[in-house]
């Protein structure tokens, strides 16, 4: 009786849910989901491509040798498998790049978000996008034929080799400025205006408001940008191959030629290594190391972005 009553109250008494299933709509949903799953399959394929040769590699070379010695020459005779020279090389290029990119990128972001008029922003942002779109092989060329000779002229006491970590690091730094600038600007733009107005009302100047209010409020987004840029720098290949070379020297002197993980993979991979040889497997082992390193950093960065979105949406 009560049910009857409720039915008449809703009008016709029929449920609002569709009366027969729509197979077409369901099929479309499945197709769309499959497209989304391609990205998951890509990750699995990368892991699959890396896993088997890497496991075989560590069957021949002990982990103790890989992480315990400091000579890297897997393609030499006799081969040596101490991975530290290319890890140190990677860190060196990345640190130089971050020294260039973090201040310049953050300052650009603060300017674009807090100071620039909409008109100025409309001009500068596309130009930054163009900078982000310059192919890295072009940066590598520029480093090799222009930046290194220029640095050799201005700073002769540095004794820069024709290929060196310094100009590679500088150019990788320029390459990642747009990443830091645009991601940091996004997170600063997401800071609610109420915080700025509150700061002005307390008598703070524009600079104080930017530095003490907006930057701290956008901090997790800025950190995410910096981590992502770090991971891009660590994986950069063409600039390093061209400007810094691929000679694995265990040194921290940025004037010297050196190799990074990515430049080792590129130079060994472009040669004709026989499939199944220890040199061929080394490419995959180093690739696995690079993948794990960048994947971990990207994960942290993505989590930070998610977290800060939850705060201000």
């Amino acid at each position, binding site marked *: 009786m009560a049910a009857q009553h409720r039915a008449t109250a809703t009008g016709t008494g029929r449920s609002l849910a569709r009366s027969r299933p729509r197979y077409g*709509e369901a099929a479309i949903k499945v197709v769309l989901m499959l497209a989304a799953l391609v990205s998951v399959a890509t990750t699995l394929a990368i892991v699959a*491509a890396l896993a088997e040769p890497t496991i075989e590699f560590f069957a021949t070379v002990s982990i103790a040798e890989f992480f315990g010695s400091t000579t890297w020459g897997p393609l030499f005779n006799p081969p040596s498998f101490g991975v530290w020279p290319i890890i140190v090389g990677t860190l060196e290029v990345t640190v130089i790049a971050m020294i260039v990119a973090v201040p310049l990128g953050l300052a650009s972001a603060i300017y674009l978000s807090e100071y620039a008029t909409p008109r100025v922003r409309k001009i500068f942002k596309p130009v930054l996008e163009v900078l982000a779109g310059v*192919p890295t092989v072009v940066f*590598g060329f520029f480093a090799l034929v222009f930046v290194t000779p220029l640095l050799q002229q201005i700073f002769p006491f540095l004794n820069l080799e024709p290929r060196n970590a310094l100009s590679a690091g500088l150019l990788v730094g320029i390459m990642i400025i747009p990443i830091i600038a645009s991601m940091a600007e996004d997170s600063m733009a997401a800071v609610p205006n109420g915080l700025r107005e509150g700061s002005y009302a307390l008598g703070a100047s524009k600079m104080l408001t930017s530095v003490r209010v907006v930057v701290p409020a956008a901090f997790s987004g800025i950190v995410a940008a910096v981590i992502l840029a770090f991971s891009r720098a660590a*994986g950069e290949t063409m600039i390093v191959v061209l400007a810094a070379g691929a000679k694995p020297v265990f040194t921290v002197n940025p004037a010297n030629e050196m190799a990074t993980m990515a430049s080792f993979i590129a130079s060994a991979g472009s040669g004709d290594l026989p*499939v199944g040889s220890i040199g061929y497997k080394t490419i995959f082992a180093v690739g696995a190391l690079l993948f794990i390193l960048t994947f971990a950093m990207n994960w942290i960065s993505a989590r930070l972005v998610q977290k800060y979105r939850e705060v201000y949406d």
Partner: protein
Amino acid sequence: MALLSTPRSAVQLASKGRPLKEHLFRVALLSSLAIALGFLAALIFYVVQEGWPRLDSMLWENQPSIRRPETSGIQSSILGTLWIIGLTILMALPTGILAAIYLEEYADKTKWYNRLIDLNISNLAAVPSIVYGILGLGIIARWMSFGFTIMTGAITISLLVLPIVIISAREAIKAVPPSIREGSLALGATEWQTIWRQVLPASVPGIATGSILALSRAIGEAAPFLMLGAATFIRFNPEGVWSSFSVLPLQIYGFITRPQAEYAVLAAAAIVILLGILLLMNSVAIWLRNRYQKRW
């Protein structure tokens, strides 16, 4: 008297000219931006100046040569790049846009697998391109036995730009206000009719902008091709998807690594062509965004 002076002190709250520190800070911010952009200007100026002597018709009419830099061209790699981009448009754009529709319109964000797909895509967008080269080498070229062909290169590059296409298409779809969807559903349209007739047409400019930027990334990539056996001095044009090939950035790399000085000029000339194509694509993307993007 005291009452009268109150408005006066209120006036004093307005700034009496900016203090020097404020001014310097602004100048420092602006010059940081200027350094990055000035660098871009210097780079473009330098390659145009260096490449000018070889920006002639031989560049696109001739094939690359190891012996004669003065008449060497880049025809095979221009065509190789066109093949790769054509196939990437066919593979990456539909997949990416469909995936974006699923994630924005259908996926229940409270379900763990949808969150996993989400996180996975932002991770993939930042995986180094050389790692995609390893994927292409290990899985597509060897395991699937596609060899070192255009097909292998195109699949690898498609997978590389897929996350970028998905992320930008999602932004464009997200920008369509829910009221449009609710209106359509209220008039009795099904979910897919709503997406196909309302949401997609409204988000086409945004999707196109993002896709063009993703494709310009694909055109500039060299590192994955180093792993895929793409040669740098190919003297014949690609004939189909199973041909061996070279692409423009890799050809440039090949020129740079030759010792003779003439090849540096040739590299600069090829870079001018490459940057020209990319600037054109960027301008189209920016124009599309400014012309068609609606503020709802």
